[in-house]
């Protein structure tokens, strides 16, 4: 199913039945005068039906730009300059989101694909009650009366476990806590029953106990509704909790995609391995008597998307890098049938 040469078949219908979204060599660049920021430069990833794909990466890895590209919500001067975004509609048809007209894209947003963001306060309109906002969303896509929409909105608040939904419908976003607002965002996103939910760092701004509630809610909703989730995060702990599959991004590319257990058990890209090694773990990093061992940070820093290296972008920081790595960018290789990696030397891992 996973192909080592993703462009082998250009026919749009070449999407396997269980795949909802497949990005193939997606390139999104920000062209500013003479400079080009290659924020996304060859992203290939797959979201399976009813599953959660976590896209994990550090700042500047292009994970948020990837999700905005899928929604086609890029702000100027960002533009998709290459690749395909094959999406399977609920009616079974396959479209390429990268080239779809703005008009058709608007019909897809909300109804087919919905998105939630890190800071729910900025994505909710402070001037309208949450009830009005959910109702507007529903009536944008479906011809139903205000009364029916209100009933639906109330049901959505119940679905996301907001206590006293009748009262909450008439409240404004600022009257709610951060956790409640994120629940409202989820209710808003799910109001039109989308097949794919894109969640961009939805729990990053929340406290751990609230984060746990939201992650729990998302897992439950996925079980009940069967939606697919593309979950963007920088937190590998959250990945381990929520993901079925993981795509690791570095410098605008997916460097590794694998089922979550495979990825954590045996990362096949030195960057993933490096990331896991530098998260403190008292069991590993403190001796019996409590003395601390030094952590193993990845040396150096992320390359600028304005000037990516010619070969593998990770090579300058990679302990395994050899001359070949520095000159030739690695293909997406199969480390095992379901485990893809962009590393020439993955067999050493």
């Amino acid at each position: 199913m996973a192909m080592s040469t993703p462009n082998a078949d250009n026919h749009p219908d070449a999407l396997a039945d269980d795949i909802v979204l497949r990005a193939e060599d997606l390139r999104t660049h920000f062209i500013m005068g003479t400079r080009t920021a290659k924020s996304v430069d060859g992203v290939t990833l797959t979201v399976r039906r009813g599953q959660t794909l976590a896209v994990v990466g550090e700042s500047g890895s292009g994970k948020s730009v990837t999700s905005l590209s899928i929604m086609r919500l890029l702000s100027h001067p960002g533009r998709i300059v290459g690749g395909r975004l094959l999406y399977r509609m609920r009616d079974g048809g396959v479209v390429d989101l990268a080239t779809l007209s703005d008009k058709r894209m608007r019909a897809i947003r909300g109804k087919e694909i919905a998105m939630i963001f890190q800071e729910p306060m900025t994505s909710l309109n402070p001037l309208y009650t949450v009830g009005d906002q959910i109702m507007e969303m529903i009536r944008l896509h479906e011809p139903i009366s205000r009364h029916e929409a209100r009933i639906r909105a109330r049901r959505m608040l119940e679905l996301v476990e907001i206590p006293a939904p009748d009262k909450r419908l008439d409240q404004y976003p600022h009257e709610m806590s951060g956790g409640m607002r994120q629940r409202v965002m989820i209710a808003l996103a799910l109001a039109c029953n989308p097949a794919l939910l894109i969640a961009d760092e939805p729990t990053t701004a929340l406290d751990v106990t609230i984060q746990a509630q939201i992650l729990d809610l998302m897992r439950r909703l996925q079980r009940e509704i069967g939606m697919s989730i593309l979950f963007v995060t920088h937190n590998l702990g959250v990945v381990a909790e929520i993901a079925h599959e993981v795509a690791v991004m570095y410098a605008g590319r997916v460097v590794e995609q694998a089922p979550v257990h495979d990825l954590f058990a045996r990362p096949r890209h030195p960057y993933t391995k490096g990331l896991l090694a530098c998260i403190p773990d008292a069991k590993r990093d403190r001796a019996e008597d409590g003395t601390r061992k030094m952590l193993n940070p990845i040396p150096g820093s992320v390359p600028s998307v304005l000037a990516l290296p010619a070969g593998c972008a990770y090579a300058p920081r990679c302990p395994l890098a050899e001359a070949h790595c520095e000159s030739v960018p690695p293909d997406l290789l199969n480390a095992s049938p379901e485990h893809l990696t962009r590393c020439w030397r993955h067999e050493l891992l």
Partner: protein
Amino acid sequence: MTDTTHTTQAPDDADILLSVRGLSKQFLTGSGPVKAVEDISFDVRRGQIVGIVGESGSGKTTAGRCLLRLVEPSSGKAIFDGVDLFSLPEKALRAYRRRLQIIFQDPYSSLNPRMRVRDIIGEAIDTHGLAKGAARQARIEELLTRVGLSPEHASRYPNEFSGGQRQRVGIARALAVEPELIIADEPVSALDVSVQAQVLNLIQELQRELGLTMIFISHDLTVVEYLCDEIVVLYLGRIMEQGPARSVYAKPRHPYTRALLATAPVPDPNVRRERVILQGDIPSPLDPPSGCVFRTRCPHAIAACAETVPTRETVGPGHSVACIRQAELAETYQD
């Protein structure tokens, strides 16, 4: 007045660099007084790292600011090397400023955007008249090298650095006055994982080599478990549990600590811990619950929890818990 609220007397221990007793801070807001920090007591031993853990509204940041008198505490004592910092007049406090320093969370707003790195670090040196002329220049370069930057960075402005590098500049500024105690307020929370590890290593190196004592304020339980010797768990401005980190992590005795540990994400999909997901939101500090402030979200709360403010009970060496049901709950925890 505050003495009666203490459960422990200030210990007469030469090892203790800072002894906080009954620290409280009330803010007057438009909607009434907020008890941001309420009767906090703990000791910091020389060379140790004490972690203060809590979620938003726990008062952890306010507590840190009070210790530095960046926020004036409402009551309590902070005995630093035999002197109560809270009763020092502003003039006398200035000399102590040199001995206690702070590192901030946000690497962007913690450096004056209009000052070069040289002036940022130099200001610390000048304020206490530590070096002049060539010696000052040499000291700045030494500090930059010490935190993993290079001397050429001295003439740059903060905006020319990455987040991790800015954090290093902030650390160099704090080190410039050769402090004994550093309060680090979420120093790695705003950094990427790989950079976070670099900065954590730096903090440890400095702590070891310079014999620093540290209060490490954080919401990240994983980092605290790795880094800290002692831990203080705050909720709505009150201490829920405190003790040696190993003991608290191995046998958390407060329902809140247990919930925190159970919900902290661990980068291992095979870890299927008992899921203690707390219901509801953190209550508003404007209107905290009566009795035990945690009772509204506590899975084990009983009627009595609303009536009495729990006192701290010792459950192990240096390990204490503020929960009236801790003894009976301890049995259910044995696993």
